[in-house]
């Protein structure tokens, strides 16, 4: 240590050449680091849960009769963790709707977890809005955030409208230009809705 220090102070590059043993030790060391990094990655995948069909996280099918009438309070589907809302003319034209977020009539499956910190918001009939019991975020029937601390609109699941033969007639699409899930007008001939609880469309951020 002191010798090396003395040599470097003397200005001579005292670094000895790379010996075979030193090189091999670097090689073993590198392979050990790669092995450990790979193991850490494998452990992450080991710990990552997978989902099966039918349970939450998979596709949930419900007959079209279970869709609530337009502009009525939302219907709760606890097993799928969503509220099914049917926006009529009235809800689509709600004056509380934030500017720049036009809604069209149709059906949405709102993920029932508040986008703020994961509490379950609920429908308050007196205010005709969703309210979160933990921090008071508020949302319209269409999922638009009208009061914080949440910073975006509610997340929605992708809905497919299927006919008797199982053909997909229409499905939820992200709205042009934002990541907001649009409402799905139910086409004639639909017999069932397939809600994919594994495909979530994040609500657009909102500065209201």
């Amino acid at each position, binding site marked *: 240590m002191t010798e090396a220090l003395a040599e470097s102070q003397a200005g001579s590059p005292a670094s000895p050449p790379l010996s075979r043993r030193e090189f091999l030790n670097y090689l073993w060391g590198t392979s050990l680091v790669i092995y450990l990094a790979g193991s850490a990655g494998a452990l*992450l995948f080991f*710990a*990552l*849960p997978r989902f099966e069909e039918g349970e*939450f*996280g998979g596709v949930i099918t419900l007959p079209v009769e279970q869709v609530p009438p337009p502009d009525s309070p939302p219907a709760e589907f*606890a097993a799928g*963790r969503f509220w099914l809302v049917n926006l009529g003319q009235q809800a689509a034209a709600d004056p509380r709707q934030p500017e720049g977020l036009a809604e069209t009539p149709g059906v949405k499956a709102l993920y029932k*977890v508040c986008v*703020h*910190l*994961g*509490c*379950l*918001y*609920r429908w*308050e009939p*007196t*205010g005709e809005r969703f*309210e*979160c*019991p*933990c*921090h*008071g975020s508020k949302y319209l029937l269409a999922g638009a955030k009208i*009061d*914080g*601390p949440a*910073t975006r609109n509610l997340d929605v699941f992708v809905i497919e409208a299927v006919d008797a033969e199982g053909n997909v007639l229409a499905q939820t699409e992200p709205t042009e230009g934002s990541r907001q899930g649009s409402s799905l007008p139910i086409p004639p001939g639909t017999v069932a809705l397939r809600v994919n609880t594994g495909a979530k469309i*994040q609500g657009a951020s909102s500065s209201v």
Partner: protein
Amino acid sequence: MAIFRMHIPFLDEVKAKGLRQAGRAKADDIVTRVTAGLNPSDVRGLLRDDAPGRPNPRLTPHAEGFWLHMRPTYYHTLVDGLYPTFRLGWLATFFFVFEIITGVILMVYYTPSPNAAFENMLNLLGNVFLGSTLRDLHKLGAEAMVLVVALHMLRTFVTGSYKKPRQFTWATGIILLGVTLFLSFSGYLLPWDQLSLWAVTIGASMVEAFPPEVVGQTMNLIVRGGPEFNADGLLRFYLLHVVLLPFIGLIAFGVHYYKVIHHGHSLPPGSEKVGEDTAKRVPMDSRVYFMPKIITRELFYIVALMFLFLAAATFFYEAPLEVKADSLITPLHTTAPWYFLWLQGMLKLGDKVIWGVIVPTVLIGLLLVLPYFEVGPSRRYGDRRLGLSLAALSVAAIAVLSFMGTPWYGVSTSAEQEAVATLLPQTHPGPLREAEWEALQLGSFTASEYASAPNAEMAALLESFHEEVERVNDEARSEAEGVMVIEDWQTDLKKVTLRVIWTNLVDGSPGEYSQVVFLHRQAAYDRGGGS
């Protein structure tokens, strides 16, 4: 030819010296072995605090024994008083051991499964000898440990003890602070009641905010074992709580304490020259020997703390238990545990990614490397006005942010729900459930007429109800009134309906919100009973 030979020297001794003499010599020998170097007269001299002989036999156990080799043989008189350490590091260690012991005992009656965990709690509370006391001790010890560790950090900052050469000791201390917080937080989920499930759900949601989105969502799934807490999440938190975090804590503690002893306890800032560190150079006349002074005092501390905590857990403190966790209902006014309220308060300031992830990460990172960039040589208070002001400001900020994290700040749910929740909160038993069952008179009572209530207890309930009901009146609603209806429902069971009625100003139509609760004469609502 013998297969093996046995020789018992003690028998030779008995032959040579007689039984009594040989027995006494053997007993001396055993005591010396057990104490790693002190014979019985040394032990007695130690307990009497006689002057040690030369060479000092009380140093031998530090050199020979495992346990005492971790402790210094003497301290400086300047760090022997309450100031400057306030014994906070010692206390943190005490609570760590205390939590391990009570925790391991509690594990006997615990199964980490949503089907069993809550019933385990009821079993502990009602059916296990000293079960509730042990649970109270474990919970109380955990809260005390969080407090003590935080104060220990504050003290270390204030006295400038993180400065050179103790930078790395400080860094390991920050790791220990994190371990302490997460130990407490992971333990929060284990009772599997409404309080634990939703408090931990809120806390764990911070993980989801981690940018970019795919990383946050993946981390969230890995931490919770699914999109929401369930059997997998409970098991993961249990394993964190009983295996991984204690393991990390033990290792970090080992490094931390090794460094503390290696550098010596830093002396009070004013007692040495600026830039000097004389903690390891202790003059002979300034030494307080570990044996007997420190060891007997620590023994006394342990006894006193055990007594205090046992008394507190027996007479004053009950670890809360709400009704069983329901992943479909979030109770009104749920908050994170108190030591994360500051984080909740920050989250109310704005974006989750900035205030929930980036700011805390940067703050913790800054704390971790603080001694490597704050390199002012002086530890004296007068030379560190900026640093000490910042510390005072941080404490104030944490207090304010913690208040902002409570439901009293910035959470506005419907006024009629708030009014009912004053008497019937969803996160703790509250005044109505804790009211004297006998005092609840049958009948229908109007909140505004609280003055004419049949007794003082009901008058108090109705008055606080009335005050909150008043707030239902706003630009859209008027004539709000609260009603409490008490009915005899079954033997020893009363049905109480809390109703808020009002008139909508827009169309003159009436509005109503009500909630019903059944109160049993013998239910223990603060102990997981009822709903």
